[in-house]
């Protein structure tokens, strides 16, 4: 399975190499990259995009594309926050997660219904529902930045450990939300690799008609997929506000496109069927390093966005080239005949 040729054909090594290169560059320029506190800060920064990217990757692997997950996360967390605040909730934060997950489930299920049952195109449907949900949030609920119940604040303050930077004296706390990310990663890894549901997602991304004929319940699988993405989004929303100790309904909006870029950079094929969690994580790591650490090599913050854009373009260009090479290789091989011991 792990022949050297196969490794070189996938994108992950290249992204990994890019990360290493970038890290070394930053370390050389500032001496601050490989410090404990910087690394912890990076991990903290990537928890939310990584959680988003997992669901996003699953959808793209199935051959679709979902741009509504940030809207779902925002609306779910906002409604949860308001409810808990207005009822003066002071209990365990688990309820907040559960409520938000529930709202996320309902919103994701709507996507699932439109896409799986009514068979509407995914990009446009999720554009529509994203519009619907943000409209509801700002319109019906007149959402604005708001406080957060104390238990959530408490949860946000929980740390796994603290990293101290000897030189600057800065300390960074590894947030306990990282555990949620790890748990989701393990769950989804198991789901995608060891369950028929997971294999079904890949099968649908490969050839939906064939999946239907093989006996996969395509509608049910897709319905699950989008609902699951909704649940993940809901959980991510609460994780976000707990880390910020503050519920601003618009902070997560606009992240969709960078998350999708990270997923694609990590080797997931836009047309579906191929994609790994490792690659996706690497893609998110790269994007996070870019967003957070450019200042350490002297790139002024004003130029970071342009830089990110350039990276997306170069990264996708390289991936596109790889796909092209793969196709030429396979068509040349089509001339070969069977190897049969008749």
């Amino acid at each position, binding site marked *: 399975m792990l022949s050297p040729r196969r490794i070189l054909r996938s994108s992950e090594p290249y992204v990994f190499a890019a990360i290493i290169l970038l890290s070394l560059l930053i370390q050389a320029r500032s001496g601050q990259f490989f410090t404990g506190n910087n690394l912890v800060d990076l991990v903290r920064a990537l928890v939310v995009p990584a959680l988003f990217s997992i669901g996003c990757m699953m959808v793209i692997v199935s051959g679709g594309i979902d741009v509504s997950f940030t809207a779902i996360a925002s609306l779910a967390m906002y409604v949860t926050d308001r409810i808990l605040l207005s009822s003066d909730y002071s209990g365990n934060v688990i309820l907040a997660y559960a409520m938000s997950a529930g709202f996320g489930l309902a919103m994701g299920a709507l996507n699932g219904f439109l896409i799986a049952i009514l068979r*509407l*195109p995914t990009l446009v449907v999720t554009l529509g529902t994203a*519009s*619907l949900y943000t409209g509801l949030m700002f319109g019906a609920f007149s959402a604005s930045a708001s406080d957060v119940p104390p238990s959530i604040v408490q949860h946000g303050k929980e740390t796994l450990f603290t990293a101290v930077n000897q030189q600057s004296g800065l300390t960074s706390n590894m947030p306990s939300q990282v555990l949620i990310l790890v748990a989701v990663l393990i769950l989804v890894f198991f789901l995608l690799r060891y369950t028929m549901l997971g294999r079904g997602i890949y099968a649908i991304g490969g050839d939906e008609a064939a999946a239907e004929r093989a006996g996969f319940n395509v509608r049910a699988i897709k319905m699950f997929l989008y609902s699951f993405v909704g649940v993940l989004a809901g959980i991510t929303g609460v994780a976000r506000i707990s880390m910020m100790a503050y519920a601003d309904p618009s902070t997560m909006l606009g992240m969709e496109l960078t998350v999708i*870029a990270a997923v694609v950079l990590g080797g997931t094929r836009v047309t579906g069927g191929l994609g790994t969690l490792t690659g996706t994580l690497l893609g998110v790591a790269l994007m996070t390093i870019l967003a957070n650490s450019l200042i350490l090599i002297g790139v002024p913050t004003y130029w970071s966005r342009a830089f990110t854009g350039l990276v997306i373009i170069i990264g996708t260009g390289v991936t596109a080239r790889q796909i092209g090479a793969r196709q030429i290789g396979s068509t040349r091989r089509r001339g070969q005949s069977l190897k049969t011991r008749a």
Partner: protein
Amino acid sequence: MGKPESSPVARKLRGPRDQNLVRLLVMLLFVFALMTVLRPNQFATIADFNSMMRQFPEYGIMAIGISLTMITGGIDLGVVGTANLSAIVAAKFLIAAVPQGSPPAVVLPYLAVAVIFALVTGLACGAFAGILISRFNIPAILATLGTQQLFTGIAIGITNGRPQSRLPLLYSKIGNTEFFDFFPLSFVIFVVIAVSVGLLLSRARFGTSMYMLGTNPKASRYAGLNNASILLRTYMLSGLLSSVAGLIMMARANSAKADYGAPYTLQCVLIAVLGGIDPNGGFGKIAGVTLAILILQFLSSGLNMFNNISNFYRDVIWGGVLILVLVFNQLLSRRAERRAVRKGAA
């Protein structure tokens, strides 16, 4: 199984995609009537029409640009970045070159040059995206996602994020002129663009080649069409239109900023799809897109008149309507196709 000779109008409106136009028209009239009934003293007044005509050209023109790229099977998510960058280029030039307090006669040529700079920027941005897509085979979604970030990033970089607002007054004066005291310049520009692009698509060979490329790029190559050239020209056109939109925004706001119009991208895609542009490529008419633009504008303005209903409800309605229209379109085109297959395979 002969069909009776139908009238030219009926024949023109036969396909399910043409019926889409009729549906949009009905929807438009419905929204119009609804708003007029609910707010008779505010909606459908001259002042209101005038105000609407000043609002929609900027995103309407970008919606047309996005529609063109979608017809060729791609999408241009970088329209807003291009618009802002073009406006900022023009603004920086004007601020740097025009001495303060100059009389209009002196300023005018500078304005012309600034406009040209903006348009050239738009063409260049479009060309860049077009090359990424046609030469490097980067999928359009990703390439224009990248260019959106890149162009906005450059705009932020060269302005340090600050709005460019010390523009010569003459610019917004000209930009906000109204013909016959009623039709804003931006509206006239929109009409000219909509009509010319519409004609381009329906009557010119470039338009036909765009539709064919969007339907099947492989067959298009085998048929002798120059795919790369068509794509490049399409994205350059989209870039050009975006720069026009940017100039219009600058006239209205009397300044240029790197992050104006951020929600427009999503809106324009929705408008295009609602207007009948097939996201897979190959189909769609500017007439439909125009109707969709008007529907959105009527809704927007109408909702504005209800003080206790937030504008964000428009997004809710918009999202809901889009989904309903999608469902409807899908069901209808599937039914029409089944009928056609049975008739045609005789």
